[in-house]
C-alpha cells in the first residue's frame, strides 16, 4: 500500500500498539512466574501456559497453586491483617492512593499486557479497564480515609479469598482488592487461569508502592486452586466473580462455615428499545452492550427486546452498523473487537448459535476477515429467536445478541423479568416517564437508561436473582467488606430446654393454634399437632406441625401479595404502627404468654412486649425513611441507588425472646416491602401464633405476613430449597445455618444467618440499618441527562 493507493481507497491501515515494554517484562521473568506470597515471589513451579488469544501463541508459564501455596498465602494474609487493620484510615488511604498512582504511571504496560493476555482491543484496556481500575483505588482510598467516621461500629471482615474471571482480569482485581484493602482486610487473590499476567504485574507494582508484605497475595492456578481458597478455614470471606455454576459450588462449599460470601455471576440482561427511542443511539448502545470485550461481559445486554412498531427499522440500522465493525488483533488500534478468550469458548459460542439457527432463529452476522491463528467470532444477532431456545435463555458469553419484540411496556417488563438472572438492564426511550417506570419495574441490580455498560467505583455493581449477591463499588459495596462489631460479641445459641410435659394447664380452654397463611388461619396439611410445654411443664396448648406443603402454601400466598412492594412507604409505615398499637393494646396478654412459655419474670416479660411494640414503631418509622442515595459518578447525570425489596422472605425466628425475636426478624422485611413466611420459635411458638390476632386487626394485606410452626430444621430446609423464596433469614442452630446455606443454591437466594450465635434482641444493634440492608438490595439506575 502506498499513499496514493490509500488516497483512492481511503482504507484504514493496521496501527499497532508498541508491545516492547510488555515483552521485556515477560522476558525479565524468563516467561515463568511463581506466586506472590507475603511480599515476594515464590520460585516458578509446575503449572500451565497462558496464551495470546489473538494469535494462539504462548505468552508465559505460571504456577499451579497447590494446597501448601494456598495455605502459606492465607497464613501471610492472616499475619498481616491485624496490623493492616490497626493502621489509621489515613495511613491505609495513603497506600491505596499510591496504588492508584502507580497504576496510572504504568497504565501503558498494564494495558498492553492485558490486551495480549485477554485478546481484548488495546483501546478498551487503555481507555476503559485500566483507568477505571485506577479510579477504584482512588475512590476506595477515600473510604479508607473516612472509614472511622462513615462506618462506626464496623470492623474489617479479616482475610478475604478472591477469585476473579478472565474477561476483565485487571479491572476485576481492582474491584475486589481496592475495597478489601481500603477497609482493613487482607487478600488472597486468584486470577483466572487464562489471564494471570496483570495480577502478577500488579503484585510487583504494589511492592514498589510500599504495600506491606502479606496484605496482598496472588496465587495462580485453575479452578481447583480457587476451590482450595474458598474451602480454606483460614479465610473469613469469599468474593467471587464468575459463572453461576461455580458460584453455586462455592455457596455449597462455604455453607455453615460462617464465611461471608459475595457472588457476582452470570446474566442475560435485557436491552429494551421503546418506539420513542433514539434508534441510532440504541444501535450504538448494542455495539457497547454486545461487542464490548467481544460480548464476554457478565452484564452484556444480550436480550434485545424491541417494540414491534420499530423493530424492522431498528434491525435494519443494526445490521448496517454491524457491517462497519472491525475485528482484529488486540494491539491493533483500528478495531472494535478482538479475539474470544480461547478456541473452546469460541466453539461453544458457535455451537449455541448453530443450534439457535436450527431452531428457527434468523442469523445476522457481520462478514469478517480476522487475522490467522486467533480464536475470533463475528458480531452476531439472532433475530426472532424462539423463546424456548437455549440461546434465548442461557448466557452465551460471546458477541451474540438475541432479539424478540414486545407490544406494550408491560409486556417488555414481562419478557425482561422472565429470566433466572437479574444483573443489568438497559432501557432506551426519550420519554423520561416511560424510561423510569421501566427502570423501577425491571428486576436487575443495575439499570442503564439510554446508555449501557457504564460503570464507576462510586456506584455499586451487582445482581439480583441468580446473578448473585453483594455489591462492588460505592458505599453499598463497602458493607460487603465489613462486619458489625456488635455481632462479634454474640455467643453460641443454646437450644431451648423444653420442660417435660406434666399435663394440661387447667385454667385454659383447649386451643390449637393453626397457621396463618394468606390472611387466614389454616390447618396443617399433615394434620399433626404438637403440644407446647410451658416453663413449669404444663401444656399451654398445641400448635400445628408444618411440612413442605404448608411452606408451599405459605410461599404461594406470599408470592401473590407482590403488590405490598409497590404500596407507598407511608402506607407500609401506617400498618406497622397499627401493628404496634394493637400489640400494645394486648400487652398484658402477650406478657403473660411469655411468662408462661419461658418462665421469665413479669417485669422482664412486660419489657419484652414493650420492646416489641417499640421495634414495630421503629420499623414503621424506617418504612418511609430507609432511602437510597444519589451517586455522583464522573458523568453528566445521576446514578440513583435505590434499596428495593428482595421479594419473598423465609424467616426462621430465634428460639430466644419468642416475641421480640419474632418481631425483630420479620418487621424489617415487612417495612421494606418484602413478604414474609415466618417459622415461629420452635420451643415457644405461641407468641407468634397469638400475633395472628394483631395481624388480623392491623390491616395487613393477606399474604404479606404468613406464619407456620414446626421444626426449624425441617421448615428451614424447605424454605431454603423453595425456588420461589428469594431470601432466607435463619436464626437457629449452627447446623440450621449450614442447611439453609447449602440448600439455597437452587435459585441462589440470599441467606442472612447468625450461624447459631444468639443476638441480644434487646440491644439497639438488633434493629435498624444492618437488618434493613439485609432486607433490601440496591438497584442502581444510571440516568445520564443533557439536551
Amino acid at each position, binding site marked *: *500500500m*502506498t499513499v496514493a493507493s*490509500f488516497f483512492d481507497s481511503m482504507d*484504514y491501515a493496521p496501527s499497532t500498539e508498541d508491545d516492547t515494554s510488555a515483552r521485556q517484562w515477560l522476558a525479565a521473568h524468563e516467561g515463568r512466574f511463581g506466586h506472590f506470597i507475603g511480599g515476594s515471589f515464590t520460585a516458578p513451579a509446575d503449572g500451565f501456559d497462558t496464551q495470546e488469544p489473538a494469535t494462539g501463541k504462548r505468552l508465559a508459564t505460571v504456577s499451579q497453586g497447590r494446597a501448601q501455596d494456598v495455605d502459606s498465602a492465607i497464613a501471610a494474609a492472616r499475619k498481616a491483617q491485624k496490623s493492616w487493620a490497626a493502621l489509621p484510615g489515613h495511613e491505609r488511604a495513603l497506600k491505596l492512593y499510591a496504588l492508584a498512582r502507580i497504576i496510572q504511571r504504568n497504565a501503558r504496560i498494564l494495558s498492553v499486557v492485558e490486551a495480549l493476555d485477554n485478546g481484548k482491543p488495546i483501546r478498551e484496556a487503555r481507555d476503559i479497564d485500566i483507568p477505571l481500575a485506577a479510579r477504584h483505588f482512588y475512590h476506595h482510598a477515600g473510604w479508607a480515609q473516612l472509614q472511622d467516621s462513615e462506618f462506626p461500629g464496623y470492623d474489617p471482615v479479616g482475610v478475604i479469598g478472591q477469585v476473579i474471571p478472565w474477561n476483565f482480569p485487571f479491572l476485576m482485581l481492582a474491584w475486589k482488592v481496592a475495597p478489601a484493602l481500603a477497609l482493613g482486610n487482607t487478600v488472597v487473590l486468584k486470577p483466572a487461569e487464562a489471564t494471570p499476567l496483570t495480577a502478577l504485574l500488579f503484585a510487583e507494582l504494589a511492592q514498589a508502592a510500599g504495600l506491606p508484605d502479606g496484605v496482598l497475595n496472588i496465587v495462580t492456578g485453575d479452578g481447583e486452586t480457587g476451590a482450595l481458597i474458598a474451602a480454606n478455614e483460614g479465610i473469613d470471606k469469599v468474593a467471587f466473580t464468575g459463572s453461576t455454576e461455580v458460584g453455586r459450588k462455592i455457596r455449597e462449599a462455604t455453607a455453615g462455615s460462617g464465611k461471608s460470601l459475595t457472588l457476582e455471576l452470570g446474566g442475560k440482561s435485557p436491552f429494551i428499545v421503546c418506539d*420513542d427511542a433514539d434508534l441510532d443511539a440504541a444501535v*450504538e448502545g448494542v455495539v457497547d452492550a454486545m461487542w464490548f470485550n467481544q460480548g464476554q461481559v457478565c452484564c452484556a445486554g444480550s436480550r434485545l427486546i424491541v417494540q414491534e412498531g420499530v423493530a424492522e427499522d431498528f434491525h435494519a440500522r443494526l445490521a448496517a452498523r454491524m457491517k462497519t465493525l472491525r475485528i482484529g488483533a488486540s494491539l491493533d488500534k483500528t478495531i472494535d473487537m478482538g479475539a474470544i478468550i480461547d478456541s473452546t469458548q469460541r466453539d461453544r459460542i458457535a455451537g449455541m448459535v448453530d443450534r439457535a439457527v436450527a431452531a428457527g432463529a434468523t442469523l445476522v452476522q457481520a462478514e469478517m476477515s480476522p487475522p490467522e491463528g486467533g480464536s475470533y467470532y463475528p458480531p452476531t444477532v439472532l433475530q426472532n429467536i424462539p423463546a424456548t431456545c437455549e440461546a434465548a435463555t442461557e448466557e452465551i458469553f460471546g458477541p451474540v445478541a438475541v432479539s424478540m419484540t414486545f407490544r406494550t411496556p408491560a409486556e417488555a417488563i414481562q419478557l425482561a423479568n422472565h429470566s433466572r438472572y437479574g444483573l443489568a438492564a438497559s432501557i432506551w426511550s426519550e420519554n423520561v416517564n416511560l424510561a423510569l417506570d421501566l427502570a423501577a419495574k425491571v428486576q436487575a441490580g443495575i439499570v442503564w437508561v439510554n*446508555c449501557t455498560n457504564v460503570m464507576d467505583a462510586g456506584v455499586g455493581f451487582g445482581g439480583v436473582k441468580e446473578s448473585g449477591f453483594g455489591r462492588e463499588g460505592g458505599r453499598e459495596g463497602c458493607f460487603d467488606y465489613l462486619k458489625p462489631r456488635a455481632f462479634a460479641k454474640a455467643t453460641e445459641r443454646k437450644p431451648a430446654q423444653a420442660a417435660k410435659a406434666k399435663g394440661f394447664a387447667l385454667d385454659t380452654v383447649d386451643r390449637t393454634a393453626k397457621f396463618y397463611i394468606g390472611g387466614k388461619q389454616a390447618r396443617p396439611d399433615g394434620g399433626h399437632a404438637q403440644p407446647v410445654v410451658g416453663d413449669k411443664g404444663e401444656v399451654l396448648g398445641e400448635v400445628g406441625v408444618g411440612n413442605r406443603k404448608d411452606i408451599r402454601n405459605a410461599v404461594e400466598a406470599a408470592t401473590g401479595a407482590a403488590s405490598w412492594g409497590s404500596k407507598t412507604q407511608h402506607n407500609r409505615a401506617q400498618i406497622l404502627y397499627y401493628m404496634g398499637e394493637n400489640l400494645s393494646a394486648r400487652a398484658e396478654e402477650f406478657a403473660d404468654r411469655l411468662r408462661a412459655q419461658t418462665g421469665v419474670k413479669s417485669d422482664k416479660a412486660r419489657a419484652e412486649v414493650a420492646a416489641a411494640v417499640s421495634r414495630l414503631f421503629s420499623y414503621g418509622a424506617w418504612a418511609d425513611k430507609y432511602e437510597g442515595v444519589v451517586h455522583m459518578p464522573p458523568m453528566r447525570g445521576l446514578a440513583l441507588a435505590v434499596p428495593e425489596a428482595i421479594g419473598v422472605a423465609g424467616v426462621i425466628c430465634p428460639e430466644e425472646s419468642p416475641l421480640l425475636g419474632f418481631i425483630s426478624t420479620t418487621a424489617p422485611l415487612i417495612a421494606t416491602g418484602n413478604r414474609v413466611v415466618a417459622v415461629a420459635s420452635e420451643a415457644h411458638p405461641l407468641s407468634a401464633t397469638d400475633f395472628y390476632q394483631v395481624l388480623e386487626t392491623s390491616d395487613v394485606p393477606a399474604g404479606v405476613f404468613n406464619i407456620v410452626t414446626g421444626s426449624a430444621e425441617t421448615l428451614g430446609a424447605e424454605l431454603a430449597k423453595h425456588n420461589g423464596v428469594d431470601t432466607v433469614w435463619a436464626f437457629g442452630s449452627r447446623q440450621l445455618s449450614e442447611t439453609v446455606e447449602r440448600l439455597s443454591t437452587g435459585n441462589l437466594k440470599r441467606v442472612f444467618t447468625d450461624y447459631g450465635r444468639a443476638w441480644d434482641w434487646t440491644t439497639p444493634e438488633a434493629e435498624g440499618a444492618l437488618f434493613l440492608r439485609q432486607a433490601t438490595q440496591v438497584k442502581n439506575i444510571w440516568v445520564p441527562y443533557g439536551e
Partner: protein
Amino acid sequence: MSQTAALPEVTAPAEGHARNPGLPLDLSLVESVRVNTSASERRAAALPGRRAVKGDAQSAWLLKAVTCIDLTTLNGDDTEGRVRRLCAKAIQPVRPDLLAALGMQDHRITTGAICVYHRFVATAVDALQGSGIPVAAVSTGFPAGLSPHATKLAEIEASVKDGAEEIDIVITREHVLTGNWQALYDEMHEYRAACGDAHVKAILATGDLKTLRNVAKASLVCMMAGADFIKTSTGKEGVNATLPVSLTMVRAIRQYQEMTGIKVGYKPAGGVSKAKDVLTYLALMKEELGHDWLQPDLFRIGASSLLGDIERQLEHRVTGAYSAARRHPIG
C-alpha cells in the same frame, strides 16, 4: 408560498450523483426526530480511539482532507490582495516537493473551493481561472441572516452572476427556535431556486440552535427544501462544528438518503483546525455514511488554519522532523 412549488430539475453532475431535488415538507418526519445527547456524545468520544490512522494512510487521509477544504476568508478587513493570495494557496496547497516525496505528484491536489464574501467572488473567480476550483460565496445576510428576504435573494443572484458555483446560505435561526418549520422550508426552498445551477449549502448555525434535536430537525427541513449540502456554522457563533453535532447531521443525511436515495453533502465549519481532528471527521464520515462521503463532492471542511497544520504534519511524515509554519507558503 406553496410547499409544493416546482423544484429545480435534477441535474447529474460529473461526480455521478444526482442533485437533491427536495421533497414536500413532511412535518411528521420532523416531529419524529429523536436525538439523545448523552448517547451522541458517547459515540463521538469513543470514535477517535476506535480508528487510529497512522503512517501512509494518515498522509493519504490528510491529502484527501486538503481536497475537501473550503479555504476560507470571511473577515471585515478582507481585500482583493488578500483574496488573491488565498487563491494561490488553494491552487497549490501543499509544497510540490512534499507531494513528490509522498508519491502524490501526479494527483492534482487543490483545495475543494475558495469561500469568500460576495464582494470578492469576481476576484476569486479571476484568480482561480483554469484551476477548476469553484468559488463559494457566503450569502443571505451572512452571518446573522437577518437582512430583508428580497435582499437575500438578490445577494444570491448577484454572487451567481459573478461566477460563484456554490452558495453558502445562512438560515433564519428564529424559524428553528420557534419551531416554524414551514417558514424554514419556504426560505430554504427559495434560496435553492435563486441559486439555479449553483450548489447550495445550508448553514444551520448549530451553535445558535443549541440542541441536537434542533440540529436534526433543521437538517431534515433544509434537505427536504433542496439543500445540496448541510453545513454546521458560519464560524462566527460561539460554538462551531463539534463531533456530536456532526454525528447528528450525518445521521440526518443518512436518514434522508434511505428515504429518497439522494446523497446530500456535509460541511463542518469552524472548529476543525488540527490535522488530528480532521482525521476523526473523515473517520466519522466513513463510519456513518461510507466512502462516497470522503470526496469533495459530498464532504467539505470550512477552515482557514487547518491547512497549515496538515502541511506541517505532511512534512514531518516526509522528513521525520517537526515542521514550522514558515516553511510552507503563506495562504
